[in-house]
């Protein structure tokens, strides 16, 4: 037998001035199931809570209804009070007679009548409430970071410094990512390698960090606190434990015509290589597409010369399976392909390059050892023209609709560096807008104009063409309302950036959502910007949206804080108001899994009795309560009504409907 207690709050005069609280409490006394009904000035006060606790104990209440302010205000307070009195906290319902009643109505009779109905509705619901237990799931105290760029490195270091084990999975042969390719960084112009490589070394030497380079995530199972991840360790053909990074193999390798991808293909590298001098791990890798031995079976020179016997042509991909409590995605970006932008002549002219290529051309460790020479004839370019927004802010379908955010600043940086190193060079920049929000950013850009005399032209380039070996850049100068053609020696395109394509696979494996531009979606654009909607998955760097280095590092550290906050817990409390299928009615039709934003629903084959001593195997839905967030999308898509939501069950909501409509 249900024993319901009702507590009507005055909220001082907030409720009592428009709702006759005593009358409400009195009227409700005669409701079936109600054994106690009282009113009090401030239910949420210490005394008010005491009143509730006492009544629960004295009257053996099985459920309580509080007529008070919005549940968004004090539901938690009253649940806690109930729990302290020995009543399951989910046997509490709130009738919102303040925000939804006393505050919006003026007529006392009308408001009192409505308050009675609202309390009745809550009673109808609480009668169908079931005691719920917040579940617990263990937390594996180890984190996975996918991507070994600056975002991944920073996140890993911060997590490891807090004392948790971290694995970095990096698909390339070394960590470092895009930042390792950069020459200088804005707005301070420090050398990128000088600030990045010490962090890379820290990672390698940190006892809590394990770097799995040349590896990819292959499969992810499980949920927050309890992920099981299968990682493919691609065959390097070099024993990582033996290689000392002496580079004799690189010297001796006869196949030297491979494109050096680290240098954006601007020069060549041997088939066995270490991507760059400060690579971590400092271990060689063989490109099987290029290696003569692996392609034809003949050669084996590197093996002969290797002093430690690290070369192993027989190496195969291997798999490791590890458990993690949290996952940070930091898969980074790449510049877009420029095939759709014929007008800039990127594919036809060697001297039309992208900004990232320019970074390598300017870098001391780059193909020209830091001397700016143009690719076609190794001459010093005298006139350099930059074109902004190549493929950014483009809704025509050729490019990307968003602003790539970093181009304005790095172009100012390039322009400044060139003018400083080669003062006889003329530098032009075609821009649509110059966007410089950030500390010391606008000052930096203005310095390029005012101090270094970079020629900024408001307008866009319509065509780059080759005339007698000169690059003619034709565009508009909107301020002067003229069309101009600039004879240039080098043209640099600020190509839009896009998420690294491998992010799609990662997102699918993690059931993390992704937007139309392939950026990972954050849980809340403003308030949960580093969390994926999938619990236990965090986002750092450009995989979530365009950003520069300081922003990436901040986000990575924020991720780390979130991960640490998760990993210090031994167990996770789960929201008990989750979906729950009735297996006896489930068709196993997959409709519910199709609408689940969290991937909380899986299917299992189960044996059921079907009468006559017989059984049958049926596919039925299974909700992981640690992953389900309790939205209820699945409950509506389920045709048989097998799926229901605890705390908001169909029957509960229908009883509320009935109580409201009863005349």
């Amino acid at each position, binding site marked *: 037998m249900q024993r319901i207690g009702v507590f009507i709050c005055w909220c001082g005069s907030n409720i009592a001035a428009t709702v006759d609280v005593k009358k409400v409490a009195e009227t409700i006394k005669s409701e079936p199931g109600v054994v106690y009904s009282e009113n009090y000035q401030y239910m949420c006060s210490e005394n008010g809570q005491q009143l509730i606790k006492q009544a629960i104990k004295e009257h053996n209440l099985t459920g309580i209804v509080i007529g008070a302010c919005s549940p968004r205000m004090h539901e938690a307070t009253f649940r806690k009070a109930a729990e302290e009195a020995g009543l399951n906290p989910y046997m509490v319902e709130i009738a919102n007679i303040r925000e939804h009643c006393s505050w919006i109505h003026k007529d006392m009779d009308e408001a009192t009548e409505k308050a009675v109905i609202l309390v009745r509705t809550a009673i109808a619901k609480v009668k169908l409430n079931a005691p719920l237990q917040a579940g617990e799931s263990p937390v594996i105290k180890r984190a996975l970071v996918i991507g070994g760029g600056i975002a991944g490195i920073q996140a890993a270091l911060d997590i490891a410094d807090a004392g948790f084990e971290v694995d970095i999975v990096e698909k390339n042969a070394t960590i470092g990512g895009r930042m390792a390719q950069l020459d200088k960084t804005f707005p301070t112009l420090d050398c990128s390698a000088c600030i990045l490589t010490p962090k890379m070394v820290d990672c390698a030497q940190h006892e809590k960090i394990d770097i799995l380079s040349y590896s990819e995530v292959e499969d992810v199972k499980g949920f927050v606190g309890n992920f099981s991840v299968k990682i493919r360790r691609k065959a390097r053909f070099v024993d990582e434990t033996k290689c000392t990074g002496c580079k004799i193999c690189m010297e001796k390798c006869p196949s030297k015509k491979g494109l050096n991808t680290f240098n954006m293909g601007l020069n060549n590298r041997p088939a066995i290589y270490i991507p760059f001098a400060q690579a971590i791990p400092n271990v060689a890798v063989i490109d099987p597409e290029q290696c003569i031995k692996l392609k034809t079976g003949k050669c084996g020179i590197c093996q002969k010369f290797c002093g430690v016997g690290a070369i192993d042509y027989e190496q195969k991909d291997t798999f490791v399976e590890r458990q993690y409590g949290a996952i940070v995605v930091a898969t980074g970006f790449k510049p877009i392909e420029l095939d759709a932008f014929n*007008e800039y002549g990127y594919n036809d002219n060697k001297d039309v390059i992208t900004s990232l290529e320019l970074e390598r051309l300017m870098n001391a460790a780059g193909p020209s050892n830091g001397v700016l020479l143009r690719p076609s004839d190794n001459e010093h370019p005298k006139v350099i023209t930059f074109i902004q*927004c190549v493929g950014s*802010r*483009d*809704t*025509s*379908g*050729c*490019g990307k609709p968003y602003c790539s955010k970093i181009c304005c600043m790095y172009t100012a940086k390039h322009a400044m560096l060139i003018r400083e190193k080669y003062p006889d060079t003329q530098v032009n920049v075609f821009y*649509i807008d110059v966007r410089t929000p950030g500390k010391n950013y606008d000052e930096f850009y203005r310095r390029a104009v005012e101090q270094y005399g970079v020629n900024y032209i*408001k*307008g*866009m*380039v*319509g*065509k780059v063409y080759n005339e007698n070996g000169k690059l003619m850049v*034709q*565009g*508009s*100068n*909107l301020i002067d*309302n003229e*069309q101009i053609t600039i004879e240039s020696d080098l043209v640099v395109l600020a190509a839009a950036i896009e998420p690294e394509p491998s992010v799609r696979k990662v997102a699918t494996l993690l059931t993390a959502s992704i937007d139309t531009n392939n950026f990972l979606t954050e849980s809340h654009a403003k308030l949960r910007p580093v969390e994926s909607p999938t619990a236990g998955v965090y986002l750092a760097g450009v995989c979530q949206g365009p950003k520069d280095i300081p922003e990436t590092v901040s986000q990575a550290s924020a991720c780390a804080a979130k991960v640490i906050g998760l990993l210090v817990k031994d167990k996770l409390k789960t929201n008990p108001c989750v979906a729950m299928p009735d297996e006896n009615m489930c068709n196993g039709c997959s409709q519910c899994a199709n609408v689940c934003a969290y991937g909380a629903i899986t299917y299992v084959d189960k044996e059921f009795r079907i009468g006559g001593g017989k059984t049958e195997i049926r596919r039925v839905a299974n909700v992981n309560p640690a992953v389900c967030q309790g939205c209820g999308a699945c409950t509506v898509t389920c045709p048989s009504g097998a799926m229901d939501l605890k705390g908001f069950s169909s029957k509960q909501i229908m009883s509320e409907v009935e109580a409201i409509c009863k005349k």
Partner: protein
Amino acid sequence: MTKEERIENLNRLSGTDVRKCMKCGKCSGRCPAFKEMDIKPHQFVSMLCNGKIDELLECEAIWNCLSCMACVERCPRGVAPAAVVEAVRDTVVRMQGKNGIKAEEIPPIVDELIPQQLLVSAYRKYNK
């Protein structure tokens, strides 16, 4: 026709959304007739956007535009400056009142395969 109606008419005739323009000037950057035009392609878009149509209706540029559609091809925002030029040109021609052909009669006799340039030159030829 009031000015507002005329603006609306021009927008409709051009079939392009001038508010999408982000003022990059790429259209004027590669216009082969730029020098001859007293009002430049990007100005057609911004002037229509700002409702300055009297200037547009009086300009010479509509007769210099080659209808090569380079500006349409180049625009990163899917705006068609040439279509605005053409809309102004059509409006001017219709305002001359000596149409050999009525605007209402055009749709049924226009073959989809006839290039736009041909239609425009036909306009010019038979309407002056």
